[in-house]
């Protein structure tokens, strides 16, 4: 099996190279190679992934292959090698499946774009990078993939480069990511200098064996988490992800919902032996995660751009995952990662279909009543929404429930409490989105309205294909709770850490605390959904639900004393962008300008000043040469006297 592993990333890489070099010449068929490459990669990945899951590969006993010694420096070594265990397998499933579906979806979505070949080349490159990240067996290679996915994200966000906002968003995404990457890079250096290896399995062995002092463990964990925060758009580096929606929608689905943004979660989960040994850092992870979850959810409340709502939702869900990691619910985090990957991928692709339908309009205030016009999209998105809202028995319910349960049972009551609230908020804003988009009266531009039509099959089929796991994944791998298939798969990866943590969890008790929590949460979700229906309307004749939206009430609620501040803050994304703009663009620009001034005036001024002083001295001194011979003679006489005095001084010495 091991020899198959390199094929998984190399197939998309080959696709990238071929499409990149020849795509322009291939014209309308430029997607072919890219799509087939990913499809092939998917096939191989499935074999590998299920083999890995079936074998129950865990820490240190997975399948590895080393291609070559990448950096054989004196005092440093990093190899080009891959490693597959159960965790990798889970990720492979998500990445390749959604990746393949997004590729197929894009055939239709990008059909008329002149840069289609470029788009597919970039997508293939992304697939390669992401798979490299997932498969890498050492930290440096993970970092390489880490940076490369950042690059692809940059390229794809800025895909429509003539649009200034796209270019700016692309740059912002890359830069913010890089801030986190600095931490990751430092972590790698710390690991190398402390342990002398970057091979992850070897590092974990060493950490477990006590090869690293607790201080260094905490430092490394914290630095790694910095990287994760950047890539997974956690507070305070969450600002890039909403802007990243400037990219084509398939990109948002693939990169900014289902795969790349999960890299942070993956990294922390992958490094569970390190994090597990740093309880303090775990608290930080949980805190940042849950804070991000509530922060992003609060912003999602008021956004009007359909993709931005989904983006903030993504941030919020990622926060959940980090909270799960932080409380030690490792499997729950990965579970949520997978389910979220599918339903959020679905939601994004669906939103792309919506945007496609209404003539590239993303403002939900100019939508409404689309349910009947684009039914497939509507239905699949509804499934996604229900899933994310956490309505049983869809995927989101199980994964979210495990997270909240994990938090509660491991004593992180505050995490649970906030997470509980966020669950309600999630349901609310998702149904706000559904209501504004699909239900109620149409606000679509009459011009456009006539052209609204369902997307082509290349686009709808992926939606359907994604809706299946979004609906069924929970039951499939997450049932029964806390001992489903996924738990069995991932146990080898996490069990050591959990055991080392010294917490033996009580068995899942449906008729006990777990069931209670689930019911409470579900209740809150139901309330939130109904509230959203009241405010934004619902129209589901199949189950006899109908309610008109009430914009007046929305206005009234949002203007209520005490709430108006929250409303404005939410709408303004809590002013993070403005703060960043002030700090980095305005003040940073001024600082750079000041430094340049310093360079020109002080440093270069000194250099030129030396020249000027020299020249001026010359000009002054030349005046001695008056042209009058007696002046010269007097000069000589004075020189003579000086010399005589000099000699006398020496003589009497």
């Amino acid at each position: 099996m091991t020899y198959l592993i390199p094929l998984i990333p190399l197939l998309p890489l080959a696709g990238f190279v071929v499409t990149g070099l020849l795509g322009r010449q291939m014209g309308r068929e430029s997607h072919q190679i890219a799509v087939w490459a990913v499809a092939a990669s998917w096939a191989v990945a499935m074999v590998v992934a299920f083999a890995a899951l079936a074998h129950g590969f865990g820490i240190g006993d997975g399948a590895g292959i080393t291609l070559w010694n990448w950096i054989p420096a004196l005092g440093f070594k990093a190899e080009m090698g891959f490693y597959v265990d159960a965790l990798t397998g889970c990720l492979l499933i998500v990445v390749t499946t959604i990746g393949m579906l997004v590729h197929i979806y894009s055939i239709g979505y990008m059909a008329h774009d002149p840069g289609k070949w470029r788009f597919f080349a970039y997508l293939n490159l992304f697939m390669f990078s992401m798979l490299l990240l997932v498969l890498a067996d050492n930290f440096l290679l993970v970092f390489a993939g880490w940076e490369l996915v950042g690059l692809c994200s940059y390229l794809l966000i800025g895909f429509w480069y003539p649009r200034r906002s796209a270019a700016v968003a692309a740059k912002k995404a890359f830069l913010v990511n890089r801030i986190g990457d600095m931490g990751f890079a430092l972590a790698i250096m710390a690991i190398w200098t402390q342990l002398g290896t970057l091979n992850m399995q070897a590092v974990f062995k060493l950490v477990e064996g006590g090869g690293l002092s607790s201080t260094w463990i905490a430092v490394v964990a914290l630095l790694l988490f910095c990287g994760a925060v950047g890539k997974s758009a956690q507070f305070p580096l969450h600002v890039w992800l909403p802007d990243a929606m400037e990219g084509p929608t398939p990109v948002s689905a693939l990169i900014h919902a289902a795969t790349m943004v999960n890299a942070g979660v993956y990294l922390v989960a992958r490094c569970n032996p390190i994090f597990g040994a740093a309880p303090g850092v775990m608290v930080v992870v949980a805190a940042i995660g849950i804070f991000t979850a509530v922060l992003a959810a609060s912003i999602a409340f008021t956004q009007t751009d359909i993709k931005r709502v989904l983006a903030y939702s993504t941030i919020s869900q990622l926060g959940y995952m980090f909270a799960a990691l932080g409380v030690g619910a490792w499997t729950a985090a990965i579970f949520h990662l997978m389910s979220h990957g599918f339903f959020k991928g679905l939601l994004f692709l669906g939103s792309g279909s919506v945007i496609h339908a209404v003539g590239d309009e993303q403002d939900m205030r100019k939508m409404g009543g689309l349910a009947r016009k684009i039914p497939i999209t509507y239905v699949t998105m509804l499934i996604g929404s229900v899933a994310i809202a956490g309505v049983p028995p869809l995927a989101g319910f199980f994964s979210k429930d495990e997270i909240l349960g994990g938090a509660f049972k491991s004593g992180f009551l505050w995490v649970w409490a906030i997470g509980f609230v966020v669950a309600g908020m999630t349901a609310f804003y998702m149904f706000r989105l559904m209501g504004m988009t699909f239900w109620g009266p149409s606000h679509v531009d009459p011009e456009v309205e006539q052209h609204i039509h369902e997307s082509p099959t290349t686009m709808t089929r992926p939606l359907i294909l994604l809706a299946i796991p979004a609906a069924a994944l929970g039951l499939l791998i997450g049932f029964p709770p806390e001992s489903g298939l996924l738990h069995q798969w991932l146990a080898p990866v996490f069990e050591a850490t959990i055991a080392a943590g010294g917490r033996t969890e009580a068995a899942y008790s449906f008729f006990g605390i777990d069931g209670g929590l689930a019911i409470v949460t579900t209740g809150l979700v139901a309330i939130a959904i109904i509230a959203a229906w009241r405010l934004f309307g619902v129209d589901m004749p199949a189950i006899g639900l109908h309610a008109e939206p009430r914009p007046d009430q929305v206005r009234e609620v949002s203007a209520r004393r005490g709430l108006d501040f929250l409303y404005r803050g939410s709408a303004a994304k809590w002013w993070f962008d403005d703060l960043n703009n002030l700090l980095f663009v305005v003040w940073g620009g001024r600082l750079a300008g000041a430094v340049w001034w310093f360079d020109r005036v002080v440093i270069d001024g000194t250099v030129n000043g030396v020249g000027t002083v020299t020249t001026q001295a010359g000009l002054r001194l030349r005046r001695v040469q008056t042209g009058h011979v007696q002046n010269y003679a007097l000069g000589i006489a004075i020189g003579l006297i000086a010399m005589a005095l000099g000699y006398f001084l020496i003589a009497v010495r």
Partner: protein
Amino acid sequence: MNLPILSLITFTPLVGALVLAALPSRHEELIRRTALGFALVAWGLSLLLLAAFALGPAGFQFNETVDWIPAFGIQYKLGVDGLSVLMVVLTTTLTWISILASFGPIKDRVKGYMISFLVLEVGMIGVFIALDFFLFYIFWEIVLVPMYLIIGIWGGSNRIYATMKFVLYTLVGSLLMLVAILATAFAFQAGHGGSWTGAFDYTQLQAWSAGGHFANDLQILAFLALFLAFAIKVPMFPFHTWLPDAHTEAPTAGSVILAGVLLKLGAYGLIRFAVPLYPYAAHTFAWPIIVLSIVAIVYGAIVSIVQPDLKRLVAYSSVSHMGFVTLGIFVFSATALQGAVLQMINHGLITGGLFLLVGVVYERTHDRTIAKMGGLAAAMPIWSTVFGFFILASAGLPGLSGFVGEFLVFVGSFGVAPVIALASIIVMVLAATYLLWMFQRVAFGGLSDFLRGLGGHLTDMSGTEMVTLAPLAIGIVVLGLFPSLVLDLLRGPAQSFLAAAGVAVGG
């Protein structure tokens, strides 16, 4: 093989220069091709050298020694170790690329230009292979004159100011270095009963230094003089201000060579001479130099952000990138040193490529102001793609060579003191900031009014231009994936460097 291959490589361009001198200056095309031919021959010879170079043994290979001025023990002594070989290949490669890249842009006084370039090559190669301190100095100074002419004659509007600044600045450093070289040789002579034999011989000087025979105050003074000369050349903060001017005014190929090779001369001098000969002083000043390097790394990047001119931006980025090199040298770690040398090569490839690309645009627009650009991605897609590639390489993207060098420096310095890496790693963000912002302004957005006004002149890259860039791009990818090609060559030099610097070698 008893072929004096080093002399052959060194003097092939000189023969070329003489041949060119004999050609009548009106046959411009013939002159161009002859120059390229000789540069290619030198390149081929250097590749031969690389192939014949034995990886195993430490020390210098292909040695050639002829007494030159026996009265002072000055020899014509050449020899290469892994470091030198790499630098020679870099030099010969960039030279032919530069010459080829000059075919179009240089239309005036072609003969003088090509002669200058070939003579420049002689000096540059000579610096890298001279094993006699005095011979080194002579080649060092020979480099100065053709570059002075290249900037001064074929440069931009403010070329005279720039070239004078370049020359005077460099001369101040190098003349003081001469004093230091002579003082060192004299100390050696005085220690050998007044015999000048070997007083300028690198290996003997180094052995003498390793024996701890150079007095501390001599070391301090000589090191400072050498350091000044090399720091100006590198250039290190705060001796860097000649660089933006020189780069901005130089013709494209001049900038390529300036960035690609000339800056390396300083770093090479530090590695080859300044540290191994004066280890005490090197250790004494290591921390101040490390601080200066970090300042250069961060400062160069910050200043790059606000540069209005493409070339000036790349020039300041060089200050930042070369900061890694000096940092890597003075943390005295094998890893960091290897990273530093790798960084030297990377910087040659990447920045050389960036200057070529800026030159491509300048050829068409006769302007380099970033504010006037915009939308080139649509107008010149191939150019933009290649430009983007080099920018990413410059930003240190993994998989490309820039990453490995920088990372090795980081790791090495982190091992010495994490605070160094902590202070300098911020450049990851800053570099991305200035590069991507520049790229955004140049390539993205709609086509600017200025560019639209050029109409049909705004053609994409020509075949020749792609040929000049292809080797660099290939080098960047290959070294990014297989840095061992370089690192293996550096094993010996790094070990002997550290041994000379008095640091135990790990790994």
